[in-house]
């Protein structure tokens, strides 16, 4: 498709590529570098550590504070992702395939929720969850996560579902399958890549959240890593929390980097189909 694949054009694009890569990676490399520095060299301001150590990683895994938060983060994000993808898949199937009144309303409402100011929910949810005993529990965080992940799931999945060939569903129904069976036996396996992509996006969203996690938790019982990180400072048992914070930050960055490395194409198609093609 390129008409002028000259060396100069390639060089120019290559230079731009390098700028983008550096722009994207610098903060990540910097925090990784800090996490490997020894306490003595932590404040030398050098981008590359002069002495390397795993001390910070040992420290965080020896403390309950971080391990508990990591378990909370993984558990809450996985459960919320599973529920959001299942509910989202049901709704997206209906939107993509069925004709029923109220469809546009649902699409409209989920768009509104995608743009909803989450901070507006902080005060009422704080009070409601306190009364219901959900405050500082896993379900107390899972519920808002599902809610804000659902629009993303519905958009992405309905875009994927629309790409699945109609004929297969017809064929299944001709062979005597009901709508429900057609969904479970034919469409769901075909939609698996879409489901998987959606799951990654939803997981990233839940993994990332800070606002709900900091307002709806108060102890290690449900505190997730992003929040625990900001509590390492000051009241913690570490002498200088900087190294520990950086090590913990690197640990929770690893899954994201792996997702991005292995599923780059899918994440891009999921994000763009969900947001633009509607």
């Amino acid at each position: 498709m390129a008409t002028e694949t000259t060396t100069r054009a390639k060089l120019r694009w290559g230079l731009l590529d390098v700028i983008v890569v550096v722009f994207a990676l610098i903060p990540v490399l910097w925090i990784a570098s800090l996490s490997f520095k020894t306490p003595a060299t932590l404040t030398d301001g050098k981008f590359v550590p002069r002495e390397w150590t795993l001390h910070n990683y040992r420290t965080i895994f020896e403390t309950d504070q971080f391990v508990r938060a990591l378990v909370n983060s993984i558990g809450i994000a996985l459960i919320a992702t599973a529920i959001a993808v299942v509910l989202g898949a049901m709704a997206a199937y209906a939107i993509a395939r069925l004709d029923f009144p109220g469809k546009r309303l649902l699409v409209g409402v989920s768009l509104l929720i995608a743009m909803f100011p989450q901070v507006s929910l902080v005060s009422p949810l704080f009070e409601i969850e306190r009364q219901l005993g959900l405050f500082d529990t896993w379900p107390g965080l899972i519920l808002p996560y599902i809610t804000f992940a659902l629009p993303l799931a519905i958009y992405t999945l309905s875009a994927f579902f629309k790409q699945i060939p109609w004929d297969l569903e017809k064929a299944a129904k001709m062979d005597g399958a009901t709508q429900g069976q057609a969904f479970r036996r034919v469409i769901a396996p075909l939609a698996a890549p879409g489901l998987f992509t959606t799951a990654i996006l939803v997981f990233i969203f839940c993994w990332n959240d800070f606002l709900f996690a900091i307002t709806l938790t108060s102890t290690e019982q449900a505190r997730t890593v992003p929040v625990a990180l900001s509590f390492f400072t000051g009241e913690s048992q570490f002498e200088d929390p900087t190294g520990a914070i950086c090590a913990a930050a690197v640990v929770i960055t690893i899954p994201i980097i792996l997702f991005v490395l292995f599923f780059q194409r899918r994440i891009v198609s999921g994000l763009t189909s969900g947001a633009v093609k509607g």
Partner: protein
Amino acid sequence: MSEQTATRGTGRHAAIPTQRSGRSRAPLSENKKAERRLGWLLCAPAALVMLAVTAYPIIYSVWLSLQRFDLRFPDQREFVGLENYVTVLTNQFWWTAFGVTALITVVTVAVELVLGMGLALIMHRTLVGRGIVRTAALIPYGIVTVVAAFSWRYAWTPGTGYLANLFSDGAPLTERASSLAIIMLAEIWKTTPFMALLLMAGLALVPEDLLKAASTDGATAWQRFTKVMLPVMKPAILVALLFRTLDAFRVFDNIFVFTAGGNETSSVSMLAYNNLIRGLNLGIGSTMSVLIFITVAIIAFVFVKLFGTAAPGSSDDERR
């Protein structure tokens, strides 16, 4: 579609009548009804969760915002009408926070649009290393905001950071203007890739032959960009702007890590959080929640007016 299915289904049935159950032979309207019911049934759980966690709390927060309700003095709880609104709207902290939020929103979204467009063009048209660029660009999107915020914070902390040493004029995170600049920088770093991805989806819609035709007719690169690409991309640009504007207005994580709202760098989200969790003042916190909700609703309304028919979802049915 399902009508076709039904008729074709019954057509086949005539040939092999004994094998099929009665369901698919039922009249069309039955089928239609079943489809509706299934549609509602499948959407109900998602709709219920979304409404329960957003609509009900918003109504509840309107109710809370009309009360004097401080968790430190629970016996003083009483209905005070609009008093909380008067308190907040005449408070200079609120307006400072509002100004800060508006400033961050406008500056970051404007810069992100320009940078995002550049990044989208690179990701879409680069001749070499397309996969690498796209992968790298996704990293800021995926990284936990708090992690990135700590990285930037340590970079700007005197002694620890490489950036602070580079511009050695004291501690930038202890002064208002430089703190705000750093907050905006971190926001831009984090969200430009998302903007770029949305714009790239728009770029993909630009027909390649149209660009070729324009370039054969002697259009310069700039002319091709403004006269051919931009008009086609307009819906994508508006979607990207809407999403990012509303998202930028919610800025919280970065401010929390950088300054926790010190030196008058609070955003409205930060201020609401401080009133609620630090101050335990549910009445005032809820009032701010409602005000933020109204502001966002106004922004969304203005954008939807601009969108016209191009709003996502409205064109959902005719797309395929």
